[in-house]
C-alpha cells in the first residue's frame, strides 16, 4: 500500500497508520513521524502553499525512490496545505517494513526530502503579521546526507 496525498483539511495521522498496518499484516513494525504546528508559542497560524503541477507528482516520485531504496511493505505520506492552527498535524510519514531499520530510515529519508526538496512554502502568523519561513541550513545538510558515500542507509 502506497498512499501519497495532499490534504486541505485537518487529518488524523493515527487513522493513516492504522490503514497501513491493516494493509501490511506481515510487517514487523510501523514507523511514523508526525510533524505538527507548535502550540503554546507566539505562532497563531501556519499557511502552506504548494504548486499543483509539481507538488503531488514530486511527493509520488519521492515515495517511489523510497520504495526502491528501502525494503518497505507500505508507505503513507500525507501533507497539509492551506491554513493550519496550532497543534494541527502538518505532515505524516508512516512506513511499514519487515525489519524496523528500513522503516525508520525511510521515514527519516522522506522527511528530509519533504523539508527541503518538496514544493511547499510555509508562512506563519506572528504578532498579527504573516512571515515566510526560510529553509534552515541544517535541513539542507540533513538532505545532503543521503547522497553522500557514507549515507545513513
Amino acid at each position: 500500500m502506497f498512499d501519497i496525498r495532499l490534504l486541505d483539511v485537518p487529518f488524523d495521522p493515527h487513522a493513516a497508520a492504522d490503514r497501513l498496518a491493516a494493509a501490511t499484516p506481515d510487517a514487523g513494525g510501523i514507523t511514523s513521524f508526525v510533524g505538527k504546528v507548535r502550540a503554546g508559542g507566539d505562532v497563531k497560524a501556519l499557511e502552506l502553499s504548494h504548486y499543483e503541477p509539481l507538488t503531488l507528482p514530486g511527493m509520488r516520485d519521492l515515495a517511489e525512490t523510497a520504495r526502491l531504496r528501502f525494503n518497505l511493505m507500505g508507505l503513507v505520506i500525507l501533507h497539509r496545505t492551506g491554513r493550519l492552527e496550532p497543534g494541527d498535524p502538518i505532515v505524516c510519514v508512516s512506513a511499514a517494513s519487515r525489519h524496523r531499520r528500513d522503516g525508520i530510515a525511510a521515514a527519516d529519508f522522506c522527511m528530509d526530502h519533504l523539508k527541503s526538496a518538496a514544493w511547499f512554502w510555509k508562512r506563519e502568523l506572528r504578532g498579527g503579521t504573516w512571515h515566510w519561513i526560510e529553509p534552515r541550513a541544517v535541513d539542507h545538510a540533513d538532505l545532503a546526507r543521503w547522497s553522500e558515500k557514507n549515507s545513513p542507509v
Partner: protein
Amino acid sequence: MAVTIHFLGPLRDLAGMDRCDVEAPLDWAGLLDAVAAPVAEQLRNERVNVACAGRVLSDKTALHAQDGDEVALLPPVSGG
C-alpha cells in the same frame, strides 16, 4: 491564449499577485521584463527555480514558453 506566470510563496507577496498572463512566446529575457523589478532580481538568484509546463528547468535561462504554457517562479521551499 497566452503564457500564465505563477508567483509562488514569498514571490507572490513581492509580485503583489498570484499570477498574470503575458503574451506568448516567453523566453528568459521576456520573463525578466514581464515581472516587477524586485521579482526579476529574485529570479537571478540561483536558489530560485523556474518551471515551464509542469517541469522544473535545469537551466532557467533556456526558458521557451509557448501559448497555453504555465510558467511557475519557485523560491526556496520550506515544507514539512
